């Protein structure tokens, strides 16, 4: 047995110091954030400072650089809240006409349809936007505009699968793929939109039996994100993965390990013989409550303008909506493809059924 020496420092003083810091912090925090808070008077149009308030689901670092550039060129500050599309929709609904948001930006066209259906958007007119965004990629009333496109494609391991074996989404339920397919959760919006497009084509009963076969073919229960699926393909957990196109672009330009993964993977555009590959849009709509509508339209015009569309294409490997802008080199190297031109409203209508169907067949 031995006695233990005891610390002799007076921690009461450190407690008081910490308390003082906290009080000061609270005061600073509240006032500091109060100033940055445009939810109150700052958002009013009468203010001398021009702003546009954005609720966005996009979570790319790149986006902030684009907003900063917009502010530099136009003097309009872009205020941003980032969260999931459905969370933002719920927030918009709760805030109603008092909502400070001017623009709502999603990465799933079905969600834009849901916002439209909930009466959260308002129509607009802009010749610039009409020229920059093809009619198929914007709402009829000009209540929303597409910004970028992404294809949901089959990523395959070049050594273990030959492209001749692949044909369409429907074929992925064939027993020949048993234990070879990787996909993320059915909660993911990209998967919901894809299944919704299948329901629109074949009806819910047929798609449910397809989904049973598809889930039987999974190499493991769904987890991780699109890049994880491709890494797992490279590691040999499976041979195919359903992914969005730009993720392979990001992988090919990522860390040395990811570049090694990307080299083993090929891209296949399904359903070229019939309706085309499923394409989803990242799109933005003007909210009904918008108090800075003109600034919102200017931001939309800016986002779909050629220089900015080039940034989306070259840095994030998305397909630009502006027809005058080309996709990035690596994206072009995968070839051109026929797009499924199913309307956004149709996808929106079937997304709920798509999710319930996934629940019934055990697609987590």
């Amino acid at each position, binding site marked *: 047995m031995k006695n233990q020496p005891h610390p002799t420092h007076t921690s009461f003083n450190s407690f008081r110091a910490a308390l003082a810091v*906290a009080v000061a912090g609270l005061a600073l925090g509240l006032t500091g954030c109060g100033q940055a808070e445009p939810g109150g008077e700052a958002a009013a149009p009468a203010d001398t400072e021009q702003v546009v308030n954005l609720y966005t689901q996009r979570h790319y670092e790149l986006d902030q650089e684009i907003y900063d550039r917009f502010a530099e060129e136009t003097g309009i500050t872009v205020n941003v809240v980032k969260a999931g599309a459905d969370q933002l929709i719920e927030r918009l609904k709760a805030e109603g006409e008092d909502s400070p948001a001017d623009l709502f930006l999603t990465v799933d066209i079905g969600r834009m349809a849901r916002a439209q259906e909930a009466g959260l958007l308002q129509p607009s007119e802009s010749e610039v936007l009409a020229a920059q965004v093809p009619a198929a990629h914007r709402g009829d009333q000009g209540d929303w505009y597409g910004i970028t496109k992404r294809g949901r494609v089959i990523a395959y391991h070049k050594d273990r699968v030959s492209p001749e074996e692949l044909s369409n989404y429907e074929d992925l339920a064939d027993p020949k793929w048993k234990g070879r397919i990787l996909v993320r959760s059915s909660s993911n919006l990209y998967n919901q939109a894809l299944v919704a497009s299948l329901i629109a084509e074949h009806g819910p009963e047929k798609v449910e039996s397809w989904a049973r076969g598809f889930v039987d073919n999974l190499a493991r229960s769904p*987890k991780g994100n699109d890049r994880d699926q491709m890494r797992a393909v490279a590691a040999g957990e499976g041979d195919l993965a359903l992914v969005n196109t730009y993720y392979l672009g990001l992988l090919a330009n990522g860390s040395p390990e990811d570049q090694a993964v990307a080299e083993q993977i090929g891209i296949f555009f399904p359903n070229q013989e019939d309706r085309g590959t499923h394409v989803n849009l990242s799109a933005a709509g003007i909210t009904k409550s918008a108090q800075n509508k003109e600034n919102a339209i200017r931001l939309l015009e800016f986002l779909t303008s050629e220089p900015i569309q080039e940034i989306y294409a070259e840095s994030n490997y998305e397909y630009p909506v502006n027809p005058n802008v080309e996709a990035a080199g690596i994206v072009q190297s995968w070839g051109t493809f026929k797009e499924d031109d199913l309307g956004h409203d149709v996808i929106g209508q079937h997304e709920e059924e798509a999710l319930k169907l996934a629940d019934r067949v055990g697609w987590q």
Partner: protein
Amino acid sequence: MSKLIQGRRLWLGWPLLATALVLTPLLTLVYGGLTASSDGWNHLAEHLLWTYTVNSLLVALGVGVSCLILGVSTAWLVAHYEFPGRRWLQVALVLPLALPGYVMALVYANLLDSYGPVQQAFRWLGGYQSASEYWFPQIFSLPGVILVLSLSLFPYVYVICRPVFTWQTQLYRDASHSLGHGGWSTLWRVELPLAYPAIVGGVSLCLFEAMADYGSVAYYGVPTLTVGIYRTWFNLGDLPAAMRLASITLLVAFLLVLLERLARRGRYEGGLNAQPHANRQSLRGARAGLAAAWCALPVFLGGVIPVGMLVAWAVPATHGSSPAGYLAIFGQTLLLAAGSGLVITALALLVLFTNRLVRSRWTATAARICSLGYAVPGTVISVGVLAPLIAVDRWTIAQLNSWLGWETGLLLSGSVAGLVLAYTVRFLGVANYALEGGYARLSRVLDETAFTLGRGPRDLLRRVHLPLLRSSLGAAWLLASIDIFKELPATLVLRPFNFDTVATKTFELALEEQLGPASLYALMLVALGLIPVYLLNSWIEKNHARPAAPS
């Protein structure tokens, strides 16, 4: 006994305020869930409810048992035995608390998945060509979730039990030894029963955290109740069904609170006398090695390895990026967490002080109710908070307009005030737990003496309780602050424009699969968490150096 003395009645306002704050959002949810008819609910009940509930209970059970074993065993070893590295491990065992579950999940997913370095090395060593040629434990699984959550939560048990083992049970331990009982016998017959309230408190915290976790279970693909609530509300867009699911979660949480209450009932609330000297027995040879290894294991798995991996991933990301943006968010998060933590601690103190003052069944229940929010997932709370906040805003706007002619937009909702409110609902329970422990050690004789000397409740609080409770207050403030540092889902939904915390940045970058910058922010999260963890530790040290209350 519970007669109200004139002048104490006003204090009842505090528990009233606190219960109103906590109950309003929760009742909003329950009401919404009960009244709305919902097609989605039938779908849920038929296909998913059973899976969600069983998974939630399995996660809670697994995490509870692992945290119990890890937390109690390490606290006991460190408190009673001298072995190589003990002084270092005693501090280090708190460190995993600085890593949120979802960061731990991120690290272990990237480490252990088929494309991670561990399996790559495994393939290289075994000469395998692909992951399909051998069996390897799947990290994306229920056991995987239990592993990562236990590693980040067990320090709650450790932190709460260590002071109890170190000084509270020392006298009884010595008595047991002198009566001829050995280490094991003393542990089972004397120390564990004496530490029982602390153990139950610590394990309950872990259970609640595990029940409320969303990030790790969602990432690892384990469908629990929280995942179900998110999926139903956000993916199905069915708020009523989600509310009903949230009510079930609430019910389970309430049952846990009752169970905890029952478990603590009739138990001796710790030793009253503090022994100023802790006597540690020196271990030698293999036993010393075993003790050191056992305590080092959770430190390595929960601290050294994850932090090491984060550093390895973060270093390449530091090239060419300026620290200004990172520092701004760091400072902002620090202020928010420390400030909200202070509000929460003050409220918890006032609630518990009133309970002690009035000693009625009602105030005791109020204190229980205040802890309920801890078991409710952050996003659920954020919906519950948002609706009443907007109602208050609308009312204020109308008043300002009719009386003063002011035109304003929404005031509280979408402001930092909304965040502070959500944090209060969510984390008041944490502060309560820490303070209850302190109050249990504070003899009521003190209160009677103060009143006999003609002092009122305010003097009692300020001049007696505040100084004597400072360690517990510090612990309450720090535990709440750490939790706010890490809080993700409610912050995501309720934050104002252009407002990022370290947690939201980590999450966004992880979503974007930017492992480098995400690791950098995760490391800041760890660093932010380390400051309070360090202070917490020095307070515990202080605790065993000096009795909490004269008796």
